[in-house]
């Protein structure tokens, strides 16, 4: 009997531990909400929101883990991704509305590719021009990346203007599925699937490839990786570019989700992204996913249960988790 409970505890620890937190949150919400159909809708919304936030936050977390660099301008990539893809979609609006699902998908794919490409190039520029001179100097890093954020926001205002921009969606992602009395927006399911695909790809790269091995090792001990004969700075530029591109992709998906975007988007997402990486533990992709899912679920559940509390809920969640685990739920092993 004793042995049984011990193995049970071990199994629980192996399959979950902190990973079970979102499940627990979901269960509590289920009881509080009462109506199963609303609960399913909210949960799907929360999961898809969490996945988009994960895309925005994962790069930031890895960048910090690898080089101890905190980019306060990270949310600029989110904004740019959103606006670039919105412009691309507007340009291809003919294809979006076309009857051919192939043209629909192609237009969406091209818009996302534009956001990704922009993220890669802008990420390279950011790393090499803005951040490289202030490695190892946190104070100036915070100031300079904050300055870069201000400049980026102003550029967005200059290019796209201050008025809200509407984002066309491809026809095949419009509408929702009706399963019994449960409604699921197709775009949300799509966002969740795409986010999950990116997570699996990231996971595979980190766990199964040599580059991934180097990144994980570098997050733990940069110097030792160099002493083994690798140039971590080059690796870092790559990670920075990919992280920025993922943020841009997250922004692009967010734009389609909101369908109406303003330049304030970056600033709003920045806070959420920070909260997610702090909750998850800096440097860990799994932790970021966990944090993002938690924030996504909480935002939707609380938005339904107590709308006035919705925005403060993230903050309360962060405070609670920091009190419990000061370095986040799943910090990278140091």
């Amino acid at each position, binding site marked *: 009997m004793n042995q049984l409970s011990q193995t049970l505890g071990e199994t629980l620890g192996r399959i979950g531990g902190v990973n079970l937190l979102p499940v627990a949150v979901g269960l509590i919400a289920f009881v509080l909400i009462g109506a199963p159909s609303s609960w399913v809708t909210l949960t799907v919304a929360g999961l898809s929101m969490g996945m988009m936030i994960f895309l925005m936050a994962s790069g930031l977390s890895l960048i910090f883990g690898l080089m101890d660099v905190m980019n306060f301008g990270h949310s600029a990539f989110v904004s740019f991704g959103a606006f670039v893809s919105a412009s691309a979609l507007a340009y291809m609006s003919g294809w979006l509305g076309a009857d051919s699902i192939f043209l629909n998908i192609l237009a969406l794919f091209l818009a996302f590719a534009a956001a990704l490409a922009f993220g890669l190039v802008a990420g390279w520029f950011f790393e090499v021009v803005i951040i490289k001179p202030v490695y190892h100097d*946190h104070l100036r890093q915070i100031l300079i990346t904050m300055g870069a954020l201000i*400049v980026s926001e*102003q*550029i967005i205002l200059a290019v796209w203007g201050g008025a809200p921009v509407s984002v066309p969606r491809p026809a095949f992602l419009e509408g929702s599925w009706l399963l019994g009395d449960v409604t699921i927006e197709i775009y949300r399911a799509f966002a969740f699937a795409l986010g999950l695909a990116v997570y699996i790809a990231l996971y595979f790269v980190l766990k199964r490839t040599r580059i991934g091995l180097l990144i994980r090792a570098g997050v733990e001990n940069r110097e030792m990786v160099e002493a083994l004969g690798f140039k971590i700075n080059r690796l870092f530029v790559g990670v920075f570019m990919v992280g920025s591109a993922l943020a841009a992709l997250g922004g692009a998906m967010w734009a389609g989700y909101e369908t109406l975007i303003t330049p304030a988007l970056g600033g709003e997402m920045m806070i959420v992204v920070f909260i997610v990486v702090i909750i998850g533990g800096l440097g860990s992709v799994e932790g970021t996913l966990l944090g993002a899912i938690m924030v996504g679920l909480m935002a939707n559940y609380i938005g339904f249960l107590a709308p006035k509390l919705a925005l403060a809920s993230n903050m309360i969640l962060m405070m609670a988790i920091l009190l419990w685990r000061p370095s986040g739920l799943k910090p990278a092993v140091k």
Partner: protein
Amino acid sequence: MTQDTTKGALFIKATVLTLGALLLFAPFLFQDTRSLEVAARICIFVVLVASYDLLIGYTGIVSFAHTMFFGFGAYGAAIALKKMGPGWDAVLVGTLAGLAVSIVVAIAVGLLSLRVKAIFFAMITLAAASVALVLASQLSDLTGGEDGITYKAPQIFKTATKLMVDENGKVARLFGVKLNGKLAAYYFVFASCLALFVLCLRMVGSPLGTVLKAIRENEARAEAIGYRVVAYRTFVFVIAAIAASLAGTIYAVWLKYTGPDTALSFTIMIDILLMVVIGGMGTMYGAVIGATLLVIAQYYLRDLMGAASEALHGWPLLPELFAPDRWLLWLGIIFILLVYFFPKGIAGTISAMGARS
């Protein structure tokens, strides 16, 4: 500090004294309402920036919640003046309420996050500040939401109030300036801000300032010597919060209006950052220089940019980049360049000049 005796340092001191004198006589030197607004705003921002310099320049911690404390003070006074009517009792209650909230929040945030990395602290204060901003617009019963609150200041600060009358019963003039309530209000702002600034100056000159410097230079060693680093940092954070809160109250009394844009918005935080970096981190006098330059730029640079934008009419994108609303773009670029090339700002760079002569 040997730097105090350089020619550059003397120059900076002279500049600051001159600016102080200009502010003191501002109502007489620049006799229009806009100039008086500018002067009052400079006074307020000198306090905000000096208290922020206590954090960033002397303690090496980056907070993005300084405006939040400013807002607490402003909203405290605004709500009290609105609910209790214009009177000194309301100002007092508002001041104390703002202070109380600021102190409690500062202690909570400080103890929770000052023991972790500087970067965590910056991120957490940013999150806290954004929550405060959201709360201010959501709790509209109390704060007036996005519209803010309009209220009356105490009797003596009303423009119609006559401080002195001439033989005809009209408001008396001194060098052509009406001795009315507006003038009293300005000197209330000036005197309170001067007092707060001098307090900040005294703090960095005190033994506390020396401890802070030791912590900033080498945290581990300061800890080893026996300084309780977290306690000191939290203390400074609270002091800075108190100063910001008081500045908020003063500004609220002066403006007779408090809303998210004047008291809480992130733009104010950016202004403070720009001022402290341009003026010079860790110099205190830099606060005066940075605040003066930036406030004047805010009021007058836009006109200049408007003209530039007109002149560039017809070019692609350029008029947009020079539009008066885009002035932050240029300030942002200047800010980045300053952090790269002159991290000590104007006051720090000039003070270091002539150091070895």
